[in-house]
């Protein structure tokens, strides 16, 4: 028996039309963006690369970043470094923090937004931050003569079980983030999701509050191999509470979170469970600190 010796063919489209056409013709082709996919594998080389590779670097439209009064639109091939440099003052702080902690400068100058979102079996920093906001993602497919684009809400990008939900012939091209101003935003990255996905937790909070109460509270807990959790019961346990939160209110909300996480106890490791609860409690006490420090 001999291994197949034919080398993979590399395609380098320069326009969106060419890219969509190539994707339509070769749905099994490996998409090459910034290398995040390699970091997510335990044994990357030799990896089962398909016989075709589509290299996205030369599609200029995919690296574009634009903004309007209502939203920020980021191309899927924009690198973290580019996004942080361009959008430092307009990105919501929780999202900026999620991007900044995705890796050291040597990684963030190479890793792309789309790459971070599109690893089939791993949810990373960006997904955690985006899940708090009103975000749309654009998927394009079809043929070059009739490119079909559709915008879907960010949470429809993933299945309930955590897998990626994109048709084989489609490609993620843009991410549209609506501006939303919060009074308290917090992101914590516990562990190293690429290296130890079964120990790591990504935790993000967005809250609005007045002088005396929390008016809007959103929390997202990302378990890299499982998915993103946003539990309405936990959020409503904190929303409308008066500030500062009392110890019993924190205990109540924390108990609610523990109960919700128990439903996934077969998929979450004990350390991830403990880390999620501790990060949640810490974020509430930071919220209190912020309010009391005014």
């Amino acid at each position, binding site marked *: 028996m001999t291994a197949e010796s034919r080398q*993979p063919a590399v395609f380098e489209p320069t326009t969106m039309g060419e890219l969509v056409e190539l994707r339509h013709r070769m749905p099994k082709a490996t998409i090459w963006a*910034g*290398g995040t996919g*390699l970091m997510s594998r*335990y044994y990357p080389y030799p990896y089962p690369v398909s016989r075709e*590779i589509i290299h996205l670097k030369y599609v200029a439209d995919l690296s574009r970043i634009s903004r309007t009064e209502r939203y920020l639109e980021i191309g899927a091939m924009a690198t973290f470094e580019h996004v942080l440099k361009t959008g430092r003052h307009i990105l919501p702080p929780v999202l900026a923090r999620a991007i900044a902690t995705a890796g050291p*400068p040597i990684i963030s100058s190479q890793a792309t937004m789309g790459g971070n979102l599109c690893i089939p079996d791993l949810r990373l920093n960006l997904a955690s931050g985006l899940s708090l906001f009103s975000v749309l993602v654009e998927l394009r497919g079809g043929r070059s003569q009739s490119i079909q684009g559709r915008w879907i809400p960010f949470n429809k990008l993933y299945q309930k079980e955590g897998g990626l939900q994109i048709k084989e012939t489609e490609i993620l091209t843009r991410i549209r983030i609506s501006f939303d101003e919060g009074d308290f935003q917090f992101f914590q990255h516990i562990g190293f999701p690429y290296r130890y996905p079964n120990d790591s937790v990504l935790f993000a909070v967005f809250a609005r509050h007045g002088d005396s109460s929390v008016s809007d509270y959103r929390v997202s807990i990302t378990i890299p191999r499982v998915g993103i959790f946003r539990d309405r019961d936990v959020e409503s346990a904190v929303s409308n509470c008066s500030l500062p939160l009392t110890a019993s209110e924190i205990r109540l909300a924390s108990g609610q979170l523990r109960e919700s996480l128990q439903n996934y106890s077969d998929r979450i490791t004990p350390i991830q469970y403990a880390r999620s609860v501790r990060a949640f409690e810490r974020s509430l006490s930071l919220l209190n600190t912020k309010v009391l420090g005014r």
Partner: protein
Amino acid sequence: MDLTFTLNGKQVSCNVSADTPLFRTLMDTFNITSIKHGCSRGMCGNCVILFNGKPRLSCLIPVFAAAGQEIITYERFQKTRECTTIVRGFSDVHVMPCEYCAPSKMLIAFGILNSNPEPEKEEILESYSFNACSCVEPNKLVQGVMRAAVYQGRRKSYDRRK
């Protein structure tokens, strides 16, 4: 796949499979010894090269992406004034990285100083956070890079005066 790129100032060509990682091609085809084969997936940080002047992990670059690009490895970098500046800064505070990781540590230092001539402690620690070799104490490394930044500043102002 036939491809041509600039390696250490010389134009080179090779015929390799497109899915070969760049570090493998540099080590096997061009006998580059400063790159170390550690994890192959961007975790150990011992395969740093300068890719178009910026530090990159060569394990995260497939060889096809190198076509037409400029690659500099430590073999060439060590002959530059920038390297001398970094070595001087490191020596001042007795930072002596082991042979295994020294090339990558030097190139990372170059990247830090290139992006910010007066780097902060956090920035330096963040840049080295993925470099898995623990032969140098992190605080010493910070001092070394900061010292190198001082020398780099002096050298640049001297160059300007000249």
